[in-house]
């Protein structure tokens, strides 16, 4: 297959860019980070007419200014010539506003074409758009389109070819004419020759100067003489900035659309659903209910894969005994059973959850509900430096942290996404919530309620402190601003594209997390393995450093159980019970992880061996420890960063021990 062109997709948020990207590339996509940047990079490919085209889904933003790394990366990617053609998307139902991106693009020297997306929605609203008339004025191919309609794609491919073969560029004379109404524009324009910065016309650069674009100003300072630059700077100071150029852009758009768009004026009002979400009293409750229902709904598509995970676990014992009786060395039997089969059981359960959460919350995003969640929780989450959407991963994490990490995918800013995941780890998951009340009631009776309340308060404080510690690096101060966002109309979902996207992400997750989980489970198993059945590195280490761990309120049995809780919290209590009843750590660990540990005489065993302050220390250490191996893998998968994943792990290990220390010593004062 011959290599075709590289296409860049450019459009404002909610322009349908992601849907187009998913339908075009299907499962052939890859998500990573831009080199050295905290911005997500989405690439994919598709074949058409015997050629293989590459597609870059550029980060969504409202303009091409220098407000964020996303915008700078987008325009540099285009102007550097990495894309052969740029596909600009606009929303037909809000054409005037969404053409702003086109107006901001005009003057960049790369061929392009315009997709008037959501043509069906505009039609339903009674808008009639004459694409041919717009095309004539613009000088580039313009095509009505509906990303959710399969039939539209033929015209997409044809328009793409047409833009490439005609090397289509936007006619900028009329736009330049508008800019001339700004007094300083012409002077600045005359001082900057075309391509002073590669790929940009002097008009585009002059407009960015007036808008006081830091990146452009710095580059001009470098490439023009000091004398010229000072003249430019002096002229800029007199101008009225982005408000003036923005006005010109919209005047140009108005003239462009003049006679080409007819609409029936309808009075605006909020839909019934939006009246609930925006209600001052009930809005937050409605959002929390929506997320919880979404969490429950995501178990339905998750069940088949989770069933596979359970089935894999069920064959563990028969396979191990079959291997033993076939004369396999014990070491090999254990590796197959406790590492490989156990890991794949985890992996499939995780995939089920990732599949369900990505599908349900991807759907909420596509339909437009996620934007309402952002709106309702903007003030609250803004205090942590996050978007309103971050409330969703937090709530999901009460069920399962990996679901929270997978759900954080809807956050479009990488730094905020990593910070959200880092904070979601502080939310005790379902397995922790099963353990906390059980242990607390054994030791503290009715006082268990107080323990749970303190755990919840600690969680809030933990999130707040973590936001302060990691927030500075992940979410820069200049990126912390209040919401200026469109609340898009509700859209019908495109099921086919959504499913393909979800399947693609699940497959990618499978490939990436398998390695991580096998590795971590393998290391833990090796550390707990003992050929004679009574030792193991972790066991010996645990016993040796007991004087230190006792300082944190953890005798070696509890400390080893704490270590096991980093693999999976389900197993923590099983490990304690096995160790206090004299079992070896290796066996206790593998049994507990498989959920088969004997906990029948737990309460008498614990009360005989563990003091109240120690129990309290353990509850805190276990609850705020790394959630589990699978959450670790999901975090790595979503952040694409081994460095940040490792940082979060170390941080949580340290904080959980500090909390254990505090709990223990406060406990000593009480009892």
């Amino acid at each position: 297959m011959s290599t075709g062109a590289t296409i860049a997709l450019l459009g404002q948020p909610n322009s349908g860019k992601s849907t187009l990207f998913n339908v075009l590339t299907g499962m052939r996509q890859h998500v990573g980070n831009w080199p050295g940047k905290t911005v997500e990079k989405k690439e994919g490919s598709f074949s058409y007419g015997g050629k293989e085209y590459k597609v870059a889904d550029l980060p969504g933003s409202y303009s091409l200014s220098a407000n964020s790394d996303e915008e700078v990366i987008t325009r540099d990617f285009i102007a550097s010539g990495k894309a052969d053609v740029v596909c600009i998307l606009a929303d037909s139902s809000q054409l005037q506003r969404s053409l702003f991106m086109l107006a901001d693009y005009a003057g960049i020297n790369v061929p392009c074409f315009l997709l008037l997306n959501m043509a069906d929605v505009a039609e339903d609203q009674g808008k009639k758009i004459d694409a041919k008339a717009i095309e004539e004025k613009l000088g580039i191919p313009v095509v009505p389109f509906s990303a959710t309609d399969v039939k539209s794609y033929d015209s997409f491919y044809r328009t793409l070819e047409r833009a490439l073969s005609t090397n289509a560029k936007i006619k900028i004379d009329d736009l330049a004419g508008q800019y001339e109404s700004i007094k300083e524009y012409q002077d600045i324009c005359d001082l900057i020759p075309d391509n002073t910065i590669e790929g940009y016309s002097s008009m585009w650069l002059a407009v960015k100067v007036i808008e006081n674009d830091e990146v452009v100003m710095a580059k001009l300072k470098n490439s023009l003489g000091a004398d010229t630059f000072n003249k430019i700077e002096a002229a800029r100071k007199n101008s009225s900035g982005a408000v003036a150029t923005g006005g010109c852009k919209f005047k140009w758009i108005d003239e462009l659309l003049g006679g080409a768009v007819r609409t029936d004026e309808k009075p605006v009002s909020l839909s019934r659903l939006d009246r609930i979400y925006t209600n001052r009293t009930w809005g937050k409750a409605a959002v929390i209910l929506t997320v919880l229902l979404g969490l429950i709904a995501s178990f339905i598509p998750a069940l088949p894969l989770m069933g596979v995970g359970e089935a894999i676990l069920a064959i563990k014992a028969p396979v191990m005994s079959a291997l033993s009786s076939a004369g396999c060395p014990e070491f090999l039997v254990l590796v197959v059973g406790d590492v490989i089969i156990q890991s794949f059981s985890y992996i499939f359960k995780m995939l089920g959850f990732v599949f369900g959460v990505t599908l349900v919350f991807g759907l909420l995003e596509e339909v437009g509900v996620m934007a309402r969640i952002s709106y309702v929780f903007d003030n609250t989450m803004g205090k942590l430096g996050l978007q309103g959407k971050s409330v969703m991963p937090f709530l999901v994490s009460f069920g399962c942290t990996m679901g929270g990490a997978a759900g954080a995918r809807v956050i479009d800013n990488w730094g905020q996404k990593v910070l959200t995941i880092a904070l979601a780890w502080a939310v005790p998951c379902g397995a922790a919530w099963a353990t906390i009340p059980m242990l607390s009631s054994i030791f503290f009776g009715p006082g268990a309620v107080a323990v749970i309340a303190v755990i919840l308060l600690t969680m809030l404080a933990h999130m707040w402190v973590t936001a302060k510690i990691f927030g500075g690096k992940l979410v820069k101060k200049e990126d912390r601003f209040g919401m200026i966002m469109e609340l898009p109309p509700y859209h019908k979902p495109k099921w086919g594209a959504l499913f393909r996207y979800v399947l693609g992400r699940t497959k990618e997750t499978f490939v990436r997390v398998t390695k991580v989980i096998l590795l971590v489970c393998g290391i833990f198993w090796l550390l707990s393995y003992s050929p004679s059945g009574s030792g193991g590195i972790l066991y010996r280490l645990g016993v040796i450093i007991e004087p230190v761990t006792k300082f944190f309120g953890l005798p070696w049995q509890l400390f080893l159980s704490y270590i096991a809780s980093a693999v999976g919290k389900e197993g923590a209590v099983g490990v304690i019970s096995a160790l206090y009843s004299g079992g070896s750590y290796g066996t206790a660990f593998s049994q507990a992880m498989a959920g088969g540990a004997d906990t029948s005489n737990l309460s008498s065993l614990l009360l005989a061996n563990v003091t109240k302050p120690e129990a309290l220390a353990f509850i805190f250490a276990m609850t705020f420890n790394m959630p589990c191996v699978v959450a670790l893998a999901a975090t790595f998968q979503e952040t694409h960063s081994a460095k940040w994943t490792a940082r979060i792990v170390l941080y949580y290990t340290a904080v959980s021990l500090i909390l254990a220390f505090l709990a223990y010593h406060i406990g000593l004062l009480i009892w």
Partner: protein
Amino acid sequence: MSLSEVKENKEALISEISGDTRFMSRITSIGLTPGCRVRVVKNDKNRPILVYSRDTMIALNRNECRGITVEEVTA
């Protein structure tokens, strides 16, 4: 008057926008420019303001709106 003082379901014309470079660029790119007509759809304390303009429902943080001066349209 400031945009945040406009009552729900009232219309207003934007007369002036002021603020730092970043704010001006963000607010114009979402379609709010001087001369633009907006309708305040929702104006509750502690929530972003909802305005409707250029066929679009826009949510604006209350603090950010302080730089938007409007004249109420009486009709």
